[in-house]
């Protein structure tokens, strides 16, 4: 491996796997934990059964390749990586290929597995599809990486409709935070919304087939709002890092709390709407409002916890897991929801009041 390849591999390939470690861990856990060898073989047999079925893994590989290309494009734009722009001055193509192959290794490995399976079954067309797909993906990744480094575009432009909207009015604080969270972690926001809404929808569907009391409804709300604690983490990060001056402004404490609650209500609108539209008929409207209040109090308590001391996202998610389990148990064992809500509100408020101005990121 020449010097170009070494540097590029360490900058892009190694970092790619490090940044996406969680994604690969989940994928490995799924493949080698849930599925046994015989099931892998059955699935491979299914995929290579016909050219149309072979398009299923190819579709997944395309999504993976898009992920790699977007990652590389974003990564080379970071100022710390601008030194890479001198690469195209030399013969960098072998280095680009090395990186592309390294980053696409998981799909190349699975593709090879399918290829030999197809060879065994003499599925020549499927073999060609696999070969052409993998080859194209390596070429596309290589080409896009070379292009990103040869034509670095740092200029950002704002689409006209958004520019017009910007001219109309200045954004209020809750808008700034909501937009900031969605922009900084769009994937996390969408996945959180989808998962949380599915949990609520799934749980409320059970009421159609059996008679349950309000606890199932409240447990679904608890799980959904717990998932949204990930967004609270982003809110606090925006507040203390990206929009650092916010804490140095003379904004009354009550207004800060209102901004937080309004932002969370905006971000949790899908869950709030699903809770409303899927509320079982025989549960009272009080249960609905209790669920919302409980959810907001949970988010406020999480927000307060983040101000106790600086923690990373992984540690925070671990804490979320245990707290959510505890709260689910309190609901299960019929602790009145308003009591739990009150405790969370008070705990959150005290933690924020005590630590807000003394927090060190």
């Amino acid at each position, binding site marked *: 491996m020449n010097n170009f390849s070494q540097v590029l591999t360490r900058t892009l390939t190694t970092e790619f796997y490090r940044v996406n470690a969680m994604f690969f861990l989940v994928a490995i856990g799924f493949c080698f934990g849930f599925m046994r060898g015989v099931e892998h073989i059955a699935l491979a047999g299914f995929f290579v059964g016909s050219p149309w079925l072979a398009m299923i893994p190819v579709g997944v590989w395309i999504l993976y390749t898009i992920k790699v290309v977007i990652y590389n494009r974003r990564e080379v734009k970071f100022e710390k990586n601008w030194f890479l722009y001198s690469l195209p001055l030399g013969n960098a193509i072998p280095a680009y290929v090395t990186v592309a192959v390294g980053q696409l290794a998981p799909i190349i490995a699975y593709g090879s597995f399918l290829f030999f399976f197809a060879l065994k079954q003499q599925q020549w067309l499927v073999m060609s599809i696999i070969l052409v797909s993998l080859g194209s993906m390596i070429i596309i990744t290589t080409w896009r990486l070379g292009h990103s480094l040869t034509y670095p575009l740092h200029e*950002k432009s*704002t689409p006209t409709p958004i520019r017009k909207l910007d001219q109309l009015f*200045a954004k209020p604080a809750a808008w*700034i935070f909501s937009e900031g969270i969605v*922009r900084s972690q769009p994937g996390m926001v969408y996945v959180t919304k989808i998962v949380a809404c599915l949990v609520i929808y799934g749980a409320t569907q059970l009421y159609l087939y059996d008679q349950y009391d309000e606890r199932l409804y409240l447990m679904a709300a608890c799980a959904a709002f717990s998932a949204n604690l990930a967004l609270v983490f982003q809110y606090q990060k925006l507040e203390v890092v990206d929009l*650092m001056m916010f804490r*140095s402004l*003379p904004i*009354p*404490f009550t207004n800060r709390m209102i901004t937080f609650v309004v932002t969370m209500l905006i971000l949790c609108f899908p869950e709030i709407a699903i809770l409303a539209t899927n509320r079982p008929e025989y549960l009272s409207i009080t249960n609905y409002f209790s669920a919302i209040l409980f959810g907001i109090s949970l988010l406020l308590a999480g927000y307060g916890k983040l101000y106790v001391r600086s923690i990373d996202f992984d540690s925070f998610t671990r804490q979320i897991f245990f707290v959510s389990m505890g709260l689910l148990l309190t609901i299960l064992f019929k602790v009145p929801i308003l009591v739990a809500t009150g405790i969370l509100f008070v705990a959150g408020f005290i933690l924020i009041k005590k630590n807000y101005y003394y927090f060190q990121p």
Partner: protein
Amino acid sequence: MLEFKDFSKGYNGNLIITIPELKLAPGIYWIRGENGSGKSTLFKSLAGLLPYEGSIVLSDNINLQQQPLEFRRRVNFSEAEPLFPGFLTAKDLLRFVGSARGSDVAHQNEIASKFGIDAFIDKRCETYSSGMLKKLSLALAFLGKPKVVILDEPLITLDEQARGVLLGMIRNLEDVVVLLSSHQSFDTSDLHIKEKFRIVNKTLSNE
């Protein structure tokens, strides 16, 4: 008046800067120090962005730790290398910070115009150069009625015209403690510098 008493700031047990006792009357103060000497840490502590030991008190006995809101109302800060979320426009930030600091829209526009920000007021920060970001950060530091204005490395990346505007605005501040930091020398003949400090051995000493 700005008063430090037994002030110290460290990270993980390592002392960065300490000020046993210091009183600053209104006027312009220039704080110098090498890179990493603790200028920015001192300023961020003073702006209420970092916790510290000891006390920082303004006239009227307003203590940063005891009256964080009242203190913040009187202290404006501009960072050395400002960063703002890319999706916000200069107008968003001027209106947001202006309303928090009790500055009306006319005043916000006047300051924006002085710094030449009105030319890009509706554009998003992600499209700004470092000089434009610096101008915006400095403009934000002049909103409201501050009693302390902290300008961390105010002259870096500024063009000549904006530099003139900035020095003029500093000169026009009355009854305000202005803390400037710079690790480079600059011509101070235009400004009446009340006192110069240098950070030596983790504390402030007169030059």
